[in-house]
């Protein structure tokens, strides 16, 4: 067994930063009761100005006059944590959640994703794209990986012997021991994990309760680690909130890209797709604006999801400013990737036809793309439909135009020359759409060939119904 640990040292801060466009202004998360506000986390420009975690807010304000303050929300942080677990589920079936960290069993994943250095860079690229700072370590047990990730980024230990050597110099303060044990051990003169591991277990068992010994056993791999495996939920829901109000749809594009990117990462982990999802734009007051985004087939490509959602969003007129946006996807059908022919002659950068149709539908409206087919009805108005179904077999070859007018209109020009006809169409007595017409192929004075009809037996009062274009 090999476990990778992805430690997320700034989870809460990254969760806040990633929903804003990149900028250099100092930003802090604040927490604590109203009288004793403290800095929970500070971004790099704020830290450069001397702000640090645990500082009183009053002191921070004395150091720096202008900075953005965001209330720390533990629920939000837990949400990001779960999202990253869903992302990690893509790489391993066994994913566990530790405080500020995600551990995943990778010994079998290495067969698929290549040797560890390549796999590690895959993980790092993904996390970079999602916008989370991270430290990664690899060890034979999850606890050891967790400890090593805290000590040094990028450490990889494959064997139990090497693990003991790697753990020995780790100071107890960084060993993530049960808190009361850390206190007692340092007063005993034990400074590093190596010293602790060298002590006889029986003595430790007597002096401390069984918890510390069990913890040591799990750390070096003498005992298996009981762990609740993460299972991704069956629906996706994510919310982004801002401290300011957004009045223009354009300003929603950046957070939208994040949301659809997260959805794509989640779907990739689950090996699922999404066919329709909903965007909820929350306002200061009143009901939220809901934007339904639907696609023809299930997809999970981040660009496709973003394109579709953006197309729908751009057609929206915002009545009120937006304070939060939520993306909800309840139905997650299985994803079937489109196959491409080996001998496909299309250019390599081609957009698949389905994706093109999505893009057109997103901007032009749901009903903007039609496929026409014939029906069995002989009446020209009902002889074709855009409803799905199969075309009936071809019947007699009578002259039919290539353009059809939606509604026949009276012919105003000089009387046309008759080229062929009449063809009488008389039908529809059963459904109220009764018609009796004599159709002729005619030539107009301008040289156009037209399909016109008049009342049976007459040759005047021409009605234009189509063009032989």
């Amino acid at each position, binding site marked *: 067994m090999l476990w990778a640990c992805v430690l997320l040292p700034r989870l809460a801060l990254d969760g806040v930063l990633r929903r804003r466009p990149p900028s250099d202004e100092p930003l802090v998360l604040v927490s604590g009761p109203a009288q004793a506000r403290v800095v929970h986390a500070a971004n790099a420009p704020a830290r450069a100005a001397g702000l640090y975690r645990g500082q009183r807010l009053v002191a921070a304000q004395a150091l720096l006059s202008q900075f953005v303050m965001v209330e720390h929300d533990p629920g939000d942080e837990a949400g990001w944590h779960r999202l990253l677990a869903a992302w990690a589920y893509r790489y391993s079936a066994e994913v566990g959640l530790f405080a500020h960290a995600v551990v995943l069993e990778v010994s079998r994943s290495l067969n698929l994703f290549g040797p560890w250095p390549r796999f590690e860079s895959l993980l790092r690229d993904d996390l970079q794209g999602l916008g989370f700072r991270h430290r990664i370590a690899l060890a034979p047990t999850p606890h050891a990986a967790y400890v090593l990730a805290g000590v040094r980024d990028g450490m990889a230990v494959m064997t139990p012997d090497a693990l003991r050597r790697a753990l020995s110099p780790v100071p107890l303060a960084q060993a993530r021991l049960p808190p009361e044990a850390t206190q007692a051990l340092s007063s005993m003169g034990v400074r590093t994990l190596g010293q602790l591991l060298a002590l006889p277990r029986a003595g430790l068992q007597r002096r401390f309760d069984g918890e510390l010994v069990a913890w040591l056993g799990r750390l070096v791999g003498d005992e298996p680690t009981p762990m609740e495996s993460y299972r991704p939920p069956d629906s996706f829901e994510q919310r982004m909130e801002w401290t300011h109000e957004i009045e223009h749809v354009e300003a929603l594009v950046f957070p939208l890209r994040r949301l659809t990117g997260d959805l794509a990462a989640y779907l990739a982990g689950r090996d699922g797709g999404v066919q329709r999802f909903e965007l909820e734009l929350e306002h200061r007051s009143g009901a939220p604006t809901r934007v339904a985004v639907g696609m023809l087939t299930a997809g999970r490509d981040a660009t496709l999801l973003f394109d579709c959602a953006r197309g729908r969003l751009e057609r929206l007129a915002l009545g009120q400013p937006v304070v939060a946006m939520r993306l909800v996807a309840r139905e997650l059908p299985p994803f079937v990737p489109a196959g491409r022919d080996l001998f496909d002659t299309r250019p390599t950068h081609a957009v698949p*036809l389905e994706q093109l149709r999505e893009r057109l539908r997103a901007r032009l*409206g749901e009903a903007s793309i039609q*496929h026409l087919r014939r029906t069995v009805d002989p009446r020209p108005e009902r002889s074709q439909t*855009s409803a799905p179904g199969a*075309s009936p077999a071809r019947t007699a070859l009578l002259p039919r135009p290539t*353009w059809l007018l939606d509604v026949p209109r009276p012919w105003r020009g000089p009387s046309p020359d008759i080229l062929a006809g009449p063809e009488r169409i008389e039908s529809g007595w059963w459904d109220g759409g009764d018609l009796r017409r004599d159709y002729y*192929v005619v030539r107009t004075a301008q040289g156009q060939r037209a399909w016109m009809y008049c009342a049976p037996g007459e040759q005047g009062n021409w009605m234009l119904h189509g063009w032989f*274009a």
Partner: protein
Amino acid sequence: MGQVVALDALLHARQVWHGRAAPVPDSHQPTGWAALDAALPAGGWPEHAMTEILLPADGVGELQLVLPTLARLTRESRSVMVIAPPYVPCVAGWEARGVVMSQVDIVQAGERDVLWAAEQCLRSGSCAAVLAWPTQADDRALRRLQVAADTGKALAFVFRDRRHAMQASPAALRLELESEPGLQVRIRKCRGGNPPAGTVPLVAGWS
């Protein structure tokens, strides 16, 4: 100055270089009209480029011109996009001319979206031909379509009114349809050669 020098002598002395037109690659997209193919320098539609078709009025035979090509493409299971047609395509009429209608997407687009939709379809590279009826198109918009057709390796057909004939156009081929005395095509501009004088008659069938 004033001296008369025989051109032959200059050419012979290599003082004047005799340019030659770049050879036009043979087109793999015959129009389906033998007389028109013979008149065009490439022997067919210019590939991966835009063809502009100028009309005196609707319904003079503009579809006759392209339907053989559409029939050939759709029978090869390739996709054709019809963007903002002025009338409804009549399925029976198109099928009678060999077009497989399940391969034809009809896109309804507003005046302002026609060019955008055409560009998207051309650029995508998954359509074999795109037919568009823009009402407002300037030189820049048409140039975008020409570039998109080249990027997506598709045939673009743009149908416009004859009054635009005076404007310059970036299209690789410009055809003007005339309905008097019979249906005929005048080649206004073609890439790879001087436009032939006179007109090419098309046999206009209506059945």
